[in-house]
């Protein structure tokens, strides 16, 4: 589904050139759960941005569903993000003045989908991310961090994307809440077959994925299946609510 060939990314700042990615070759299949891991400044965010069509490589080819997207224009990339990508960010990035349900509907607004259908899909996405119904009409600032991140996951799910890209999704959460979010991703992967790419700098978090791609100084230094995969499914619903 994703194939990258000799991807390079160089940032030019007046006279200083910074190489962010060097010769990246990568293949990702449908329904994979991948963690991109590396220390800060390693280029993992840049790689995520290119995968998510937020940025373009300086050179190399990026095939998304066999279509070369590395040379597309800004608005063409927006079109791809709109239909094929779902983002989850570390800081949740919810809009403060909009209710949860409308928050989830937002990507569908840009897809030009009618109000009734939008609501239907948003409800489905909120259920998939295990977001409790009693908070659907709350505003983000009335919710805990874990709840806010679930709204963000539902928003990433709502357009039924090929890939969900999560950039340090547990970074702003405590360990227990973080685990609940990771469980949600695992469920989405196992139960709904969603392709998930998780970006993190913590090995513990990365081990919840099936495959780890290790990046350092812009290069892939390791790419392996997780042998001791951590799977969260032992938490009882009651306990979950306690932490949320």
């Amino acid at each position, binding site marked *: 589904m994703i194939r990258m060939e000799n991807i390079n990314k160089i940032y030019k700042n007046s006279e200083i050139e910074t190489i962010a990615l060097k010769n990246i070759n990568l293949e990702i299949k449908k329904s994979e759960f991948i963690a991109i891991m590396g220390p800060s400044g390693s280029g993992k965010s840049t790689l995520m941005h290119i995968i998510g069509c937020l940025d373009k490589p300086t050179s190399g080819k990026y095939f998304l569903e066999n279509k070369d997207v590395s040379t597309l224009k800004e*608005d063409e990339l927006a079109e791809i*993000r*709109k239909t094929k990508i779902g*983002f989850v960010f570390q800081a949740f990035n919810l809009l403060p003045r909009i209710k949860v349900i409308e928050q989830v509907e937002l990507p569908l607004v840009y897809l*030009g989908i009618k109000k009734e259908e939008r609501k239907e899909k948003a409800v489905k996405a909120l259920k998939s991310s295990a977001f409790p119904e009693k908070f659907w009409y709350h505003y983000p600032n009335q919710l805990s961090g874990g709840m806010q991140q679930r709204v963000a996951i539902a928003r990433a799910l709502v*357009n039924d994307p090929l890939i969900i890209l999560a950039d340090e999704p547990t970074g702003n959460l405590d360990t227990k809440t973080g685990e609940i979010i990771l469980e949600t991703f695992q469920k989405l992967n196992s139960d709904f077959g969603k392709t998930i790419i998780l970006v993190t700098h913590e090995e513990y978090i990365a081990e919840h994925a099936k495959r780890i791609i290790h990046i350092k100084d812009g290069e892939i230094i390791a790419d392996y299946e997780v042998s001791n995969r951590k799977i969260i499914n032992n938490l009882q619903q009651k306990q979950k609510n306690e932490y949320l």
Partner: protein
Amino acid sequence: MSIFDLLKEALSSIKVNKLRSILTVLGIIIGIAAVISMLSIGEGAKKQLAQSVENAGSNLLTVFPGIIQPGRGIVSSGRGTAQSLKMKDVEVIEKIEGVKAVSPEISRRFQIVSSSGKNINSLVIGVTPEYSIVRNSKVEKGRFFSKNDLSRVVVLGPTTAQDLFPNEDPIGKTIRINKVNFKVIGVLEPKGSLGFINIDEVVLVPILVMQKILTGSEYLSQISVQAESSDLIEVLKEKITDELSKEHKVPRDNPDFSVIASQQFLNVFNTLINTMTIFLSSIAAISLIVGGIGIMNMMLTSITERTKEIGLRKAIGAKKKEILLQFLIESIILTLIGGLFGIILGSLISIGISKFANITSQISLYSIFLALTFSSLVGIIFGYWPAKRAAKLDPIVALRYE
């Protein structure tokens, strides 16, 4: 993104920053209100002028002694001093085809004393019965003069009648003009002022009496000519000039009289009023520009505050155009709200002015249309640049903005 969603989006963000939006819109409200009230006063002045010209008599041409050039000073020319028009000219004009009625007039100010001892200074005009037709001035009480009237009788303007004979019927009473007794035989109906002369404050006497007893001179102050229809006015103006030049034995291109159509007065004054209105509205429009800068400032602040939001919207697939429209519509809504309230405030101001300052004002659809167009233009012009900036934001940079 549908236009409905865009509008909803814009309204919700205006609502969030209520106080800031109100303060910013206030600038637009003041600008539009100023433009509206200036335009309506100008419009009112034109209407009032047209009304008073209509009152003075329709299809009117006036022959003055001396040279008068419209637009270069109607007042300063030799009115009253030049002596070239005589009763003989009236006969000449009467013979011209298309002339309906001719009214010769001699005017001069005199001191007037009523039998009850009231003393005023008033304009006395010597006229023929045609005056009543040409000047569209009817007698309200009593009667007008007959042709070739030689008796010492007067018809009073309504204001003069009120001044000389408060609370009594002036008909049959005696007044003294320049130490000569005259008997009041009629009172005119009220008409209001025309330019410099209040035609309700006059005393009319038979023209022959005026010549023989009061001025002792046969020269006329002016000859008013009524055309049979308005399309004849230009033709008549030429014909009168032709005939009178021949009669006076003066060259046609340098006559010793002037023929002026009342329409010409109207045009001159209208040009003057237009110039004033444009001048004043332009000053008012400057405040609109200041208001527009306020809108721009607010949009820039709001966009900076919402950088992260813009980043997110782009990440989930918003195109440049959609971001641009979102902010542009927000600023257009702001200025349109300003425009609407500005029209209301401006209308109240012009109604207030016409009530308390006694100036006619007329709110026209045209000025409302102009105000709305102008305010949405301000929204587009001053909202475009901030919106463009928002649309051009790099999503990665915008998402990282703190």
